[in-house]
């Protein structure tokens, strides 16, 4: 895979339009509508069962431009959460007892509000997760980031698609593997991933191409052996995440002639048990501009929460959101294939 240096938006790709992405996904030949499949499995309509994860997407700015990015994040993107929206999020959080705040981006750490949000959420007694691309820890401006995260007992979920450079660099950019290894060493040195430290370092593996991830337990064992043996690196758990057929991964699928066969692969692997556990049922996702979504993927397709519920963080009303009807589409096949896929890895 060649490296992509600019976002879809900067390249003025037709896929910048969320409608165009939805149109493409609804027209793939080998894909029956997701809602129909869910009806057969007894999950249409799909309702939320509660909110245990408050996911905040701090924006599209990132120091990397990964080939598969579902956010279309890049250094050229400027959309980031403002101080005011961040404050609304913390106010909303304080009204609830949602136990987990999951912070993502882009590279969320590059948002000037990041540290304030972490500190506030921790002060409210919530578990905080930072979805970290690892290389951000090596930026000169972020030299105190790792100790900051450790000081606030933030759980780190770090992307590392594979334990070898060829595959990782093909997906995430030239030289990223080496930086990821350096960042993992740094995290291990301050206790992250080390048994008994209480500092949690989880890794994310997603396939480097148009195929499904392996069984989570099996690939976790492989990563553990290889990372320890080759680099002396330790971690807590490895999550497998299926590539979603949207944004830059959708572009890759189209360009390589893999779209139809990938959708067929996802549809054939539809698993009712995974459908029952999709993360939108227990997640509320807030966009950089404060709009509310069922998940980060719907956010990228500009599909906000049902119009029967408040749709902006400034109108936050937990009672109205907690059992909301979920907005779905054919991209959702990415969450229900095989062992299922969520921000916390396999579902089944």
């Amino acid at each position, binding site marked *: 895979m060649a490296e992509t240096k600019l976002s879809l938006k900067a390249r003025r790709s037709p896929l910048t339009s969320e409608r165009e992405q939805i149109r493409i996904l609804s027209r793939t030949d080998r894909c029956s509508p997701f809602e129909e499949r869910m009806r057969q499995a007894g999950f249409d309509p799909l309702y939320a069962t509660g909110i245990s994860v408050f996911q905040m997407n701090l924006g599209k700015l990132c120091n990397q431009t990964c080939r598969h990015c579902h956010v279309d994040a890049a250094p050229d993107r400027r959309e980031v959460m403002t101080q005011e929206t961040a404050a609304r999020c913390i106010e909303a959080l304080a009204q609830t007892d949602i136990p987990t705040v999951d912070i993502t981006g882009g590279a969320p750490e590059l948002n000037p509000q990041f540290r304030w949000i972490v500190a506030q959420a921790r002060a409210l007694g919530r578990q905080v997760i930072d979805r970290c691309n690892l290389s951000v820890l090596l930026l000169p401006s972020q030299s105190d980031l790792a100790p900051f995260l450790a000081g606030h007992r933030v759980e780190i979920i770090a992307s590392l698609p*594979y334990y*070898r450079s*060829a*595959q990782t660099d093909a997906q995430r950019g030239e030289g990223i593997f080496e930086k990821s290894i350096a960042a993992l060493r740094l995290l291990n040195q301050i206790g992250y991933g080390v048994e008994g430290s209480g500092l949690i370092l989880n890794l994310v*593996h997603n*396939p480097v*191409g148009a*195929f*499904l*991830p*392996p*069984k989570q337990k*099996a*690939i976790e064992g*492989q990563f553990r052996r290889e990372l320890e043996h080759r680099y002396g690196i330790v971690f807590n758990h490895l999550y497998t995440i299926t590539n979603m057929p949207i944004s830059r991964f959708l572009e890759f699928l189209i360009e390589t002639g893999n779209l139809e066969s990938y959708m067929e692969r996802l549809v054939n692997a539809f698993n009712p048990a995974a459908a029952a556990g999709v993360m939108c049922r227990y997640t509320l996702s807030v966009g950089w501009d404060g709009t509310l979504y069922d998940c980060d993927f719907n956010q990228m397709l500009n599909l906000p929460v049902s119009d029967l519920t408040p749709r902006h963080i400034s109108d936050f009303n937990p009672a109205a959101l907690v059992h909301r009807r979920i907005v779905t589409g054919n991209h959702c096949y990415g969450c229900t294939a095989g062992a299922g896929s969520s921000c916390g890895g396999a579902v089944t």
Partner: protein
Amino acid sequence: MESYYHPGDLGKFAEMGKGNKELWEKFIGYYNAVFAEGALTEREKALIALAVSHAVQCPYCIDAYTQACLEKGSNVEEMTEAVHVACAIRGGASLVHGLQMRNVAHKLSM
């Protein structure tokens, strides 16, 4: 018929059950049991299957087990080495028969 092989036929493999359901079910039950995790992992079995696919030169199996190997977490370097194992055994099997040639030639020659 423009070709004897059609990529789409791989997905229709189960149609072989239409001719004789009982034998198909026995085969597929055995097949699935063979590839389940045992003393060897599913990943190791997929790599063996990939090598054997090349030895028997079945394009359907090569297609299916390339995807299976990737989905079990193997990489192209490992998969290439597996193909070389098949190649070495095929080549070695030819070459070791050279001893038959040598034996016969030796017997016939002065």
